Structures are given as C-alpha cells and as structure tokens.
C-alpha cells in the first residue's frame, strides 16, 4: 500500500510513517477513520477563521469519514515541489505542483463547486477572515474591488484561470508548502 502512496502522491515512506502516526493520534477511539469531531479536537483550528472550510476539504462529497488514503491525499498537496525532478511528458500533474495547489485553494473558496468564486462566496470568506471588525459596506466594496481587479471576462466572478493569473507573482511553491512533508 505504501508503494501506491508513493507513486500517486510522491511522498516518501518516512512521510507516510509520520502521517500515519498523526492519523492515529487524531483518531480517538481507534476507529480507523476520522470524523469531524476528531478534527474538532485540534483546538487551534477553532480559532482559525477558515478552520471549518479546511476540515470540510478533507471530507469528499457527501462522505462522513476520512480514511487514511484521503488524509494523505489532501496533505500531499502541501509537499514542497521538487523542481529538479525530471518531468515525464505524459505523466499526470503531480499533486503538489503549483496548479494542483492552486486548485486546492480555489476549491476552498468555491464552496458550491461551480468553478467560479462568486461575489457572495468572496464576501463570506472576507467576513470570516476579517472577523466582524469591519462593516458590511466595507466588505462589499472590498469584494467589488477584488472582483473588478481579477475579472477578465466580465462575468462578475473569479474563475480558476483568473484566480491563477492574479496570483502569478506570488511564490505559491513556497507559500503552500509545509515543512512537515519536507
């Protein structure tokens, strides 16, 4: 099974061991899978503005549990990119490439999965991040401004390409990598 992980997610056996230990630590009651309450026991997540979104990302559509496979799959996004690795032309996009990382982040914004970040979704994110310290009008004008800046095709929403374009100067490979999987 580790071979499968290695192949798909480009994680090393050491990583898998570490992740499995953590999985077991989170899995209170040794069920073999994780439920939302297990994630809730991580107390720092409660103070994180987008904590619930992150937890939600682990549970794929309609599922109530997270098995180890999905756990690794999500966390593999945050592995630092290995630039020197030779790229085979027909291999699928590695899960920790820049595009995949961005897609993961995009999905956190786009909760209804329609492929666009609508104004309301953006407002929701802003509201949680700014934690009630600003007024509704301020949020709205920021959201309008954001969409206006990023929106290239005029549909008043941010598609994945526009999202990617607006972040082209940001060093995503660095920003979205965790040393845990180094």
């Amino acid at each position, binding site marked *: 099974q580790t071979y499968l992980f290695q192949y798909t997610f480009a994680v090393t056996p050491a990583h898998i061991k570490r*992740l499995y230990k*953590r999985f077991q*630590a*989170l899995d209170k009651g040794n069920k073999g899978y994780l439920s939302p309450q297990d*994630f809730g026991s*991580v107390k*720092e*997540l409660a*103070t*994180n*503005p*987008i*904590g619930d979104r*992150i937890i939600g990302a682990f549970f794929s559509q309609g599922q109530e549990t997270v098995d180890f496979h999905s756990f690794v799959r999500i*966390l593999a996004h*945050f592995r*630092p990119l290995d*630039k*020197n690795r030779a790229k085979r032309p027909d291999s699928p996009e590695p899960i920790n490439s820049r595009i995949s990382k961005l897609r993961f*982040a995009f999905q*956190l*914004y786009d909760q209804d999965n329609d492929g666009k970040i609508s104004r309301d979704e953006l407002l929701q*994110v*802003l509201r949680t*991040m*700014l*934690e009630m*310290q*600003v*007024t*509704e*009008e*301020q949020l*709205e*004008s*920021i959201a*309008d*401004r*954001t969409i*206006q*800046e*990023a929106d290239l095709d005029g549909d008043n929403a941010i598609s994945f390409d526009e*999202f990617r374009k*607006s*972040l082209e*100067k*940001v*060093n*995503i*490979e*660095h*920003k*979205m*990598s*965790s*040393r*845990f999987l*180094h």
Partner: protein
Amino acid sequence: MSCWTRRGLLLALALGLALLVPMALSLGAAEKTRRSVGNGHGTGVTLRPDDSHGDGHGVNKTKKIFPVLTFDFAHVKIPFEISLWVLLASLMKLGFHLIPRLSSIVPESCLLIVVGLLVGGLMKLVGAAPPELQSDVFFLYLLPPIILDAGYFLPIRPFSENLGTILMFAVVGTLWNSFFIGGLLYAVCQIEGTDLKSIGLLPCFLFGSVISAVDPVAVLAVFEEIHINELLHILVFGESLLNDAVTVVLYHLFEEYSGLGMVTFLDVFLGVICFLVVSLGGVLVGAFYGLLAAFTSRFASHTRVIEPLFVFVYSYMSYLSAEVFHLSGIMALIACGAVMRPYVEANISHKSHTTTKYFLKMWSSVSETLIFIFLGVSTVAGLHSWNWTFVTVTIILCLVARVLGVMGLTFVINKFRIVKLTNKDQFIIAYGGLRGAIAFSLGYLLHPEEFPMRNMFLTTIITVVFFTVFVQGMTIRPLVDLLAVKKKQETKRSINEEIHTQFLDHLLTGIEDICGHYGHHHWKDKLNRFNKKYVKKCLIAGERSKEPQLIAFYHKMEMKQAIELVESGGGVKLPSAVPSTVSMQNIQPKKSNSERALPQISKSREEEIRKILRSNLQKTRQRLRSYNRHTLVGEPDEDGWNDLLLKRQKIMDMDKQISRMSNYLTVPAPPPESPTLSRSRLASDPQHYVPKPTLGNVPIIKVDLASPQSPEYVSVVDEFQKEAVPLKEEDEDAGGLTMKVPLGDPKKEEQEQQDGGKEQQRLMRCLSDPGPGGAEEEDEPFLP
C-alpha cells in the same frame, strides 16, 4: 549621438570641471588657513584683519578706517567645508545622471570613487593635505543614515522567511572567510622571499576578519541598480547587515590579543558568548527604542510637524546606545527601524510619512555619495605601502574563500529550504559579496604602534575594495543579464494578492495544526495574535489599533489611486454621490486631523455625534458622511421635498452607471454645477428621505451646514444625545437614526416642541443659510 546630447555632455563636463577646480582650491585654501591661523597671525595668508576686533584691546591703537567689508573665514570654516563636500557630492550625483551612457555602464559608486580620486589629486596639487576618512566621522555620521534607511524599509516578509539562510551566510560564512583568509595569508607570509615574516598569526586573522565582511553600503549601491529579484537581494543584503556582529566580535577579539600573540580556549569561548551578547543585545536595544518611538508617536497627533523627528532621533539614539556598550550598532538600528515601522506608520499622518521617507532617502543618498568620494580622497591622502605578494594573494583568497563558502553553505542550507537555491543563485550571491568602506574604516582604527604593518593593510584593503567595487560592480549587471537571473517585479501588490495570501496563511496554519507540526506558520500566527491583542492596543492611537491589516492596505490603495487620479488631471467629473463612502469614512478621520482653515466642532462633540450614529445607524451610517463637519449637510430647501424623492431615484440610477464605469473612485470630486443636483448630492443617502414613521423615542439629529459661525448649533445635538435610546428593530427600515429636516411634519413637531422655539428658529435659519459665502449659491462646493 544627437547634437543635443553631445552638447549636454560637453556642458556637463565643463560644469563638473569648473566646479571641481574652485572647490579643490577653496578646500586647499581652507586647509592652508587652518595651518596659518594655527601658526599665529601674520604668516602666510592672513585672513583675519587684526583691527576688526580692536576695541579696547590695545592701548596705543591708532584710529584706523572703519572696515566696511571684512573677510573672516576662520569661524565658519568647519561648517563651510562640510557644506562644500556635501554640495560636491550632490552635484556629482546630479551630473552623472545627465550623462546617459555613463550611468548605464558604470555603477555610481565607481564614478564617485573616481571623483574622489580627482579631488584628492587636485588638492594635493594645490598643496593642501586632503582629508582622510576619519573612522569616527564614518561610524557616527555617515553610516547610520544608510543603515536606518535600509532597516526602516526592510521588507519584513522575505527577510523573516529567509532568516535562517541569511544567518547562516552571515555568521558561518563570515567566520569561514576570516579564518580561511587569515590562515592562508599567514602561511603565505611565512614563505621565504617575501618580507612579510614579521606579521604574526593574530594580525593575519585580524586582517582576515576585517576584509571578509560583506559591506552593506557597497551592496546597496550596486544591487540597487541591477534590480535583481527579491530573494537574492534580501539574501545578500541581509547577510551584509547581520555580519556586523561577527565582525565586531572578531575584530575586538583579535585586536585585544594580537599584542600578546596568543589566544586561549577560554578567550575563544568568551568570544562566542560575546557574539551572542553583541548580536542579541544590539537587537534588544534597537527593539526597545523602536517600541519607545512607536509609543511616542501615538501621542503625536497634535504636533504633526515633529513626527518625523521622533523616528530619526530614536533610531540614532539606539545606534549610539548600542555603540556605548560595543554592541552591534547596525543590528540595533535595523531592529529599531523594523520594530517601529508598523506602529509609527499607523499613527503618523500621511504627510509625516512622506517626509520621513524622503528625508531618509535623502540622507542615505548623500551619505553614500560622501562615503565613496572620501574613499577616493583617502586613497590619495593616505600613506601607502604596496606589497605585490600580499595584495594579490589577498584578492585571490577573498574570491576563492567567498566561492567555497557560498557553495558549501548552500549545500547544507538546501537540505532545509523549501525553495532551494539554484546554481545561478549561488553564483550571484558569491559574486555580490562586495567589500567597502566599513573594512577601510576598521583598518583605519588600528593603532600604528601595535600594528606596524597598518599601512600595508590599509593599502591592501583599499585595493580589495576598489577591485570588488570596480570589477565586480561593473560586471555584475551584464552577468545578471547573461545568466538571465530573475529580476525584480515592479508592479504593485494588488488587493487580490493581499486577500489570497492572507487566506493561504490561514490555510497553511490550519494544515500545520492538523499535522501537529509547529512550523513557521504556526509561530507567525501566534505572533500576529499577540500583536493584535496586546501590542497594537498600546502603541497605536485610537481607532486604528483595531483596523485589520487588509483594511489598512485597501485604504492605502484607494488613497493612492485617488491621488493619482487627481494628479492626472482630475479625470471624470463625478458627483460625490458615488457609493462607497465607505472608504471615505476611513479616509476622513485622517484628513480631518490635518490642518483646516475653518474652525471646527471640537473633537468631543464630533465623537458624540459619531457615537450616536454608530450605535443606531446600522445600515445607513456608511452612506452618511456624517462626521465630517464640512459635509455634514443633508437638507434641501423646504419646498423641494417631492422633487427630492424623484431626484433620489435618478441619483441611484446614476450611481449604478458610474459605479460600473469606475467604481474604485471613492474620493468625492468637485461638485457639478446644477443647484438641484448639488442639493440632492448633498442629500445623497436615499434612506435619508424615506418618509418613514418616526419612532417616538428615536433621537433625531438635526444637522446643519458647516457654517463657521455656528459652533453653538452643536448644542442641539447635545440635547438629543441625552435622549439617546437604544434601538428597537421594529422594522428594518425604520430602525435607524434618521436625518430629518425640520419640516412641517406633524410627528416631528412634537419633538421640536421639546426644544425651545428659539432653537428651532436658529436651526431653520442655519439650515437655509448655506454659510458666509452668500445665501444664493448653493452650488458652492462644500468641500474646501
């Protein structure tokens, strides 16, 4: 080359020469007078006529003619000389940029050194002794502005992300360089044939430590022009700043003990302790002064004019305080600037911020220029002792040590870095290790008695500095282009980037928490929380302390755009009914603090008004430019009630149109001409005039125009404030403070009977009277 540029070139050269010669001569003359005055009056060129202060001195004074015009240079000599040098530096800087070709090939630092050489040479020709770069002048006056400029504008994010790498290069790299160069030089000195046997091991190490430090001034001067990408810039520059602690410790260690000729393990151990004390102590001193400065700036809202002074004085004091204890002054200065900046910027006015920025840039620019010129002059002025072996071996060793050090360290560092350093990066880092004036000044500080080879050291240091600045400085730009190193991206940060990077920060913090990994993001998040909860409250004045970073960024951006729009010629004429007075709301407090010509409602009244509005007006408050006196208007004339309802609809449609056009404009533009439009503009909030049933106990604020003679009208507001009642959300529309015009409204008359009829009359008068400007022009701009 066109005719114009040829003429320009000739003109510039002629100007330069014409200035150089008299300056050199005057400086020479100044030198001569110093000597002559010192030798007593009457020898050489006497400049002080004896009889100018003649009253009552001599007994047998014959009466001379009253001197109409005297020449007394001596008592302004020192400031005069300093000003001449600064003027020379500035004119040279000016001149270089008039010659287009030259500045793109040769970096400014080289040109300035050449100018220094020329001036020194001229002075020698004239017969005056050119001044040398005194170490205390350098360390106390010329170096701090540059370091402060660097520290204040240090980009914190890349710096903290790469801190580990920078520290490795600074500490381990410098140590490696010093010992490698020192040791091999000693070995070379022992070789037969050179007459360098007399140089002991410790002086060699001392020399090695002096010469191995990468110099921030030189790095800044060269890297500024090549616009390299942020990562490399911060790596080399950060290294040059942080290696100061190592240099200080090594220098003192070897200087102390080179007389004795040996260093024990205890001394080495103490040296390590000393290093920790020097660096951490410097940082703490700097942070302390930085916090003091931030705290002081919190109260500076009434004396905006001296705000920039606090930044400068506190920073300089931190530098001097650190120098008292022989701690690292450079690190203190960096820490001070970096710590104080976020808080001071939140507190000081926009103008003070601009002033600070420009003063820092100006001082550091002049300092840098002077340093390079003096390097040139000192070359001519100093006594030199040239030794081919020593010099060439030093240069070769410097290069080799640097390359080996960088390669070795990168190999180790890359194991820990997420984004690895490529070979190109390594090359640039190695090549960018320039030496400069700090090495020279440290060498200058050596005592000639203890170090008989001081002159040789100085000569070598100058040669190495020249080599790095000229050869490496000139060739780095074509090399950067050749290797296609990534350049700095010039564009400004967009709000998208800001929002998304914050989002990603939260995301990574969450992921790290899930993994149970206390990584970079975790600590950064903790620091931010601590900052928000405790520190900001202390150090930032008033409301700004609660402002989230995103909002501050957003407003800065809006302000910039507004200023740009105005500067570009006023652009679109918009009625200021453009929505998003949201941002105006937050711009206004800042602007309202700046000096205004008209007398104003006192701050406490303003606060009261604001409090009422804030507590009651949930939805409508942002549409009201309610607390700026000058737009605290809101009434039409008495008859225009129905008109206004129609106008309101029109305005709303127009708003939508305009917002589609350019909805980023949030600063109100000058009002258009038509009176009705202006009146309805002033009554911009549609919700103002919804004729909703007033709840009996909702206070009604009667607003009046900003008429200068009406401070007493505020008393009306006061009155109602006493009756301020918490809001009942009975229906969503009516729940709110309404800005009512005291019209003939039955419900309102009840209320109005509460105040004296006199008040009402006063109000009515003031409401229909637009102010001193005359009653008829209602299209007068209300915004000054």
